[in-house]
Structures are given as C-alpha cells and as structure tokens.
C-alpha cells in the first residue's frame, strides 16, 4: 500500500509543476503592474524602484519562480498587496470554514447517494429508483445557491430551525457549528448525492449479476451480507472515481454557497482578492485548493487500491 501511495505521489509531480508554473505566471498575465498596485497613484519613481526591488522583480523570471516556489514549499505564500497580512495566515483562517462545508456536504452526498443507489439497484423501477433518476435530472439543473436560498426561506426565515447566516467554528460550539453548516451542506450536497446515486445504482446492478454473487448465495450467506459486503465492495470501485470528482465540484460549489449564507470562507476571500487584483492572495487560494484536490485524489487512489486488489502494485 505504501508503494501505491509512493507511485501516485511520483505521478503527481508533473501536475504540481504545471500548476505551480501556471499560478506563478499568472502575475505577469494581469493587466496591472503589481508595483503600481502597491504604491498607489501617488507613488514616486523612487518608491517604485524600492518596491520593485523588494518584490525581487529585477531578477530573471526563472530565478523568481524558484524563489517563489521555495518559499511556497515552506508555507510562505507572501503578503497581501492590500492589508499586508500573511496570505498563508488569511487562507488558513478561512480554510476550516470552507472545509467544513465541503466535508459535511460530501458526507451528505455520500450517505444519501450510496443508500439511494443501493435501494434503487435492488428494486429497479420502484419509487426510489424513479426518485433517484428524477433527482439526478433535476440535480443537474438546479443551481445549488438557489436551492440554498429556498432552504433559507423555509427552514431559517419561516421555521427558524437553523440560523439564516453566519458560521460558528467547531471549536466554539460543536452543536452550533452543525446548525450553521447543515443548510449550506444540504444545498451543496443534494445534486451530488443524486449523481452518486445514479453511479452506485448502475454499478450495483452490474455487480449483482456477477457469478460470485450467485456463488455467495449458493453458499447460503445472508442477503444483507451479500449486498453490503460482497456486492458493495465491488460496486464502489467505479464509484470512487466519481466521488473524487464530486468532492472537487463540492469544493468549488462551497465558494458560491458561502455567499448565500454570508459565511466568510475562501469564496469571500477569493472574490475580494479578484476585485482588488490581490495577486499573492489569489495565488495562495489556488495553491491551497490544488493541494486539497490532490489530497482527495490521493485518498481516492488509496481507497481504490483497497477495494480493488488488482490495482495494487505487486
């Protein structure tokens, strides 16, 4: 298993390299000169030169890239052009918020999606099967942020079961934390759960027709054990790849859904940074997101290897 992880890590090197180059070169793609952004309209030529020197802009681009990469690898993503806070600090402060939404919505999507998928596979054409199909069709058409607004209207404004806005850190109060993330997570996770349900269903229908399922039944194992152990383990193999993709989608969706619930996460930070053209901040957010996605993919590969012995290097 360690070997598998190592192999996957090595395979990630080109990807990480390209992403870092893209992120870095992003600076020079911007229409405005970062030095001008920092010193403002009133800056003198002298100030300009000083800031330029401090940013290291006088050095060749390759040198700057490796300096930037070296610092990033040590967790130093630079400072914001606007309020001189450390980018790493700002990102790390918002990360738990966005991560809370992503993780809880992923749990919602997986639990609902997998159970609905199994139920639909066991009873093709039943109401739950139709519901999963209908859910998937609508899930692709309903914007998650609009669904969030509707949830707010019903459960926060009218019923007052959950707060309409805001986020409570889990360290402050786990109960309030759950209350604050539950609506956004449902808004985010529902369409993913429908997509997952469809995948689980089709994988499960295929697996249930396999010889080894019939052989397990011939051996007198209980239906429950056959479905939850023998069939599900195999059916999850193709689903795991979809899960990985869906978690990436949820991470992106969280950026928008945060706005519905006025939650100060990475989304708010990113939108502010874009409006101010705060380069180091945008670079920092992109890098952290890529790190998250890569971590999810790595975890997916490991789970894939656990579920599917043939995928393990021998």
């Amino acid at each position, binding site marked *: 298993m360690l070997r598998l992880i190592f192999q996957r890590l090595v395979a990630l090197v080109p990807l990480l390299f*390209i*992403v870092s180059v893209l992120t870095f070169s992003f600076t020079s793609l911007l229409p405005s000169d970062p030095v001008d952004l920092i010193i403002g309209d009133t800056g003198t030529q002298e100030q300009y030169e000083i800031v330029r020197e401090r940013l290291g802009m006088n050095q060749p681009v390759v040198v700057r890239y490796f300096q930037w990469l070296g610092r990033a690898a040590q967790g130093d993503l630079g400072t914001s052009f606007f309020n001189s806070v450390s980018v790493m600090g700002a990102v790390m402060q918002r990360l738990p918020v966005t991560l809370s939404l992503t993780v809880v919505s992923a749990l919602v999507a997986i639990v609902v999606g997998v159970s609905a998928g199994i139920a639909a596979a066991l009873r093709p054409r039943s109401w739950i099967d139709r519901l999963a199909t209908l859910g998937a069709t609508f899930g692709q058409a309903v914007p998650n942020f*609009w669904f969030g*607004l509707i949830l707010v209207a019903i459960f926060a404004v009218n019923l007052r079961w959950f707060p309409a806005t805001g986020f409570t850190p889990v360290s402050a109060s786990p109960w309030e934390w759950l209350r604050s993330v539950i609506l956004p997570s449902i808004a985010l996770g529902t369409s993913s759960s429908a997509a997952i349900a469809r995948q689980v269903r089709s994988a499960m229908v295929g697996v249930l027709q396999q010889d080894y399922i019939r052989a397990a039944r011939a051996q007198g*194992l*209980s239906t429950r054990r056959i479905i939850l152990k023998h069939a599900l*383990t195999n059916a999850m193999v193709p689903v795991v790849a979809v899960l990985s993709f869906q978690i990436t989608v949820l991470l992106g969706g969280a950026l928008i859904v945060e706005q*519905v619930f006025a939650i100060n996460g990475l*989304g708010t930070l990113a*939108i502010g940074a874009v409006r101010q053209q705060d380069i180091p901040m945008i670079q920092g957010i992109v890098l952290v997101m890529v790190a998250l996605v890569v971590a999810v993919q790595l975890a997916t590969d490991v789970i894939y290897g656990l579920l599917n012995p043939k995928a393990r290097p021998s």
Partner: protein
Amino acid sequence: MTAPLTTTTRTATRGQWRLDGSHVIVGIASAVLFLLAFMAIFADWIAPYEPLKQNLIEALQAPSAQHWLGTDDLGRDVLSRLIHGCRVAVIAAAEGTAIALLLGVPLGLFIGYRGGWWDWVVMRLVEAIVSIPGIMVAIVIIAILGPGLHKAMIALGILYSTSFLRLARGVVLAEREEVYVRSARVIGASDGRILLRHIFPNIAPPLIVQVTLTVGAVLLSEAGLSFIGLGVQPPDASWGTMLNTAAAFMDLNWFLAIPPGIAIIVTVLSVNLIGDVIRDAIGRGIAVDAKPAAPAVRMDNRPVVAAPAGPEPHRSTVPPRPQGDVLRVEGLEVVVGDGAGLPVITDLSFGIAKGETLGLVGESGSGKTMTGLAILGLMGAGLRTTRGSIMLNGRDLRSLSQRQMEKVRGNEVAMVFQDPTTSLNPAFTVGSQIAEVLRAKKGMSQKQAWTRVVELIDRVGIPRPEERARAYPHELSGGMAQRIAIARALSCNPALLIADEPTTALDVTVQQEILDLFRDLQEEFGMAILFVTHDLAVAADICDRISVMYAGEMVEMAEVNQLFSNPRHPYTQGLLRAMPHASDRNPPLPTIRGSVPRPGSWPAGCRFSNRCDFKIAACDRHVPLVGSDRLVRCIRASELELERAS
C-alpha cells in the same frame, strides 16, 4: 398459450408509451427554448416596463395586477427584468459554448493528430485545469480579464474548452489508425485535408451531445458568477444578479428568489432533456436500462401451439430405489413469467443416494443448469417452481421460506460453478471467502475458521496452503481457483454437491485432476453429487448414473455403462455418435441436425420429434418416461432396439 401473447402486448404498449413520453418531453423542452429565444430577441417590446426603471415607492412589492411578479428592492418590475434576463442567458450560452467549441475542437484535433510533445504538454495543462474546481478556474481568469458578462463568458469558454479538447483528441486517436485514414495518407492527402474530410465527420455526433451539456453548464455557471458579482454587473438584469438581490432580501420578500430560479431550472432542464434525447438517438448513450434483468430463458414470442394440453399433465413415476436417497426430486416443473407461466422444465424426477454421482447431460438450453439452480432456490427473476417436490434429507425444499433456504444452502447443499475465476469475489482473499462461510454457517471464531481454511485448502491439493489462503482470486490459475471453489463448497460438509460444468472452463490437463479430486473428496466426505455437464466423456468418467435431458425434460436415465453400451433414446444415440473418439480417424463427426427448441416452441408430444430420424405419427402425442431399472421417453425404444439387434 396466452402467456407469451400477453407479455408481447404489454411490452409493446410500454414501448409506445415511452416513445410518446419522450416526444412530449422534447416538445415541451423545445417550446421552452423557443420561447426563451423569442423573449431574448423581442425583450424590448414584450417587457411591460423598463428593466432598469426604479420606483422606490413601489419597492419589494408582492405580485399584483400592475407587476405580475412583483418588484425588487429598487421598485423595478421583476417580470421585465426576467424577460431581459433571457437575453443575457442566450448571449451567455452562445458565447461561452462557442468559445469552448472553437478553442477546444481544433486544439484537440491538432494534438491528437500530431501526438508527441505537443500532445504531452497540452494534456498536462488540461489536467492541471481540470484538477482545480471549475468555478475557481473561472474566478482566476476573471481576475486577469476583469468582471463583466463577456469576460466571464471568455473565462467559462476557456474552462469548458477542456471537455471539447479531450473529446476531439479521443476521436482522433481512435480514427487515426483506421484503415481509411491510413489509405488517405498513402495516396498523399494533406494532414489538413485528412483532419477535415475524414476525421472531423466522426466527431459530429458526440460533439452535438457535448454542446448540449456545455450549454446547460454555461447557463448555471453564468448565473453563479453573476450571483457572486463577477459576471453581469448591476444594475443590468440577469437571472444571476436578480438572485443576488433576492439573497439580500430573503427575510423581507422571499418571492424574489422564485422567478429567476424557476427560469434557470426550466431552461437548463430543457437543454439537458433535449441533450438526453439526442444522445439516445445517436446511440452513444451509456444510460442504464431501467428494466429488471431479463429472465435467463429466451422466450420466443410467437404464439406457437405447444405442450401441456389437458388438465393435469401425465406424470411419470420413478421406480422406488432401494437405498435412502439424499436428494429426491419428484415431478418438478419450472415456469417463467406471470400467471400460468411458460414451462421451461416439466415433470422432472430423479434421486441421488449418499456417495453417488448422478450426471445431468444435454445440449445447452436443455434445462440442466436450471435444474441445479432450482434445487438451490436460486433461479433468478421471473422463474419459479410450480409443481412437484425437492426432498433433501427428507425435507421438501419447495415448502421452505427464504430464510430457511438460506440455512440449507451451504450447510446441506452447495454448488460449484463453471468459471472459477468469476465465481470467487475479486475483492477478497480466497482464504477469507472460505472462512466467511465457516463463520457464518458454523459459528466458528476467526482463528478456528482460519485453521480449518488452511486444512481445506491443503485437502483440495494446493501446495503451500497458508500462503495461498492469502492470495486474491486473480493471483491463482483457473485450476487452483476451482479447487478453492470446491473447498469452499465442501467447507460445511453438505450432503449434496451440485457441480455445474466444473471442468468446462479449464485446460484439458487440469480437467482430469479436478475430476480425480471430486472422486477423492466424495470417498472422504460421502456427499451425493449432481454433476451437470454437456461433455459425455467427462460424465462417463465421474458418474455412476446418467440422466439425459432434452428441452426441459428427462429423456433417458441409466447406469453409466448401460447408457454408453446401449443407448435407447434416439437423442442419446445422437449425442454418443457426436462424441469424438481418439481412435477414430474419420474426420466428419456426425451431428444432430437442428438445435434444441426454446421453451414455448416445443413440439407437442415428443419434443425431440422434429429432429428425430425415426419419427412416426404417434410421436405427436404425449410420450411418458417408462422403464424399471432404466428409463426412456420414446415410444419406439424397444422396437428400435430390436431393429438394431437384428
């Protein structure tokens, strides 16, 4: 024969309904999109108010006669803004999709055709973009270009071009090596011409599907970007910006969120539905068939007049056998379908004693595997037993509940299947699969079970059993996997073992070893074996008695030597003649003309009559199974025997 007829009619009706259903859906979806385009073009004339005209006195009003959908926080008419939003939606969808298409397809064609370095670099770039959440990619591009509808659409176009690029590249890679492309190259066509004339037409169908998917995705993303303030800029009306306004006033007027939301959903739904229909029409769909798995028996839908005439079919009785049978099947009937059903096995009776091996022989479609599954109660959807009894250790399995059957399986009867590599679960080690049975059926502890597993694996003749127990099925050869399957089947010492063609999928050299193993194990464990095979040589090797099946019924049963030396049914004779002999050097092997008729198209009377050389008029009436020590279902059996003797 009404059963197959009803089935046919019902399927036809359902098919028609579905066809109509999809027509209706396409009709509605097209109407929605047509309306959208109409409003986008004529928004200025249709909208009752100016979309930007403020009237703070009439802010946040509920729907009324003046303002059908109410007003927003600045007193602007929601309906008018919604109609003008159509224009934004159409522009956004067209721009975003067109950019994605024009960027992705040529680039994909190019790198796919060129390959090499270009391909590597571009594909790594695509991977990098795909590994970042889409909305973040769009946000970063907007950071470079600045916010606004058209710039946001460039961002989305770049984002979604990756799908077009991969699609085009995939098609080129598949087509590049096709013969017609290579021959075009040979006759000296230029690369550009080959791409345009020969490869491009193949991309068109999947491209249309991808376009519909992209249009839907662009519409949703545009709404999202406008919602967070990076797309259409206020005060311009778009569905996304309207929702942005709505979000701020949820507690005052939640209705503001409804019209733009419905507009987005209905539009995207229409686009996706049309896309689905196009995909199905093109036939590239990977949609799952929602129908339940069709029963294993192929039904002939033509209403052929056939078999069971009369109130109660004749029942042949098997002569009582001296020793106590472990398994005794009496007058068993299996049918497929609802109602009376279509019979697939009729009037089947046989018994097997402890330590005895009964061979069940016949061509594919004769019902021999079905018999094995019927004993286990595992025939699959649509199939059920309707008559007779299956007595195992003195208990009728047909009367048992599902739960009771679960107990019986594994403990009293077990089955070994044809293909060992697919009958073991690929996700678990072979040892754990045997141990699981021991723990579930015998209540053994993990440790006890594992000790027994190693003993069993050793017993079925696998060297280094400890090590092999930890292997996965794919790490074992076919013969070894079949030994494991046998070990699992025998783990709870069942009284009856059903072996369904257990050597067919194996190498000839391995076949003999497995047959020897069955014989050894039977001596040790004393179980009765029902050995299903189409291979008479294998049956001759392992069986004590052989029962020949044809078209769902038994036509002959005899002790193995008697059957081979003196077959009495013309079908058995045919099978024996079709057996290759090593000593024979005569190449043309006799075959039985025709093939086994399907259930529902069995001839009335003797089911073999339409393939039989000895058919007479009397063969069209029901033929019973007769005899004392050996049985045969042929009215001319003794007559033909005399003929041959003379």
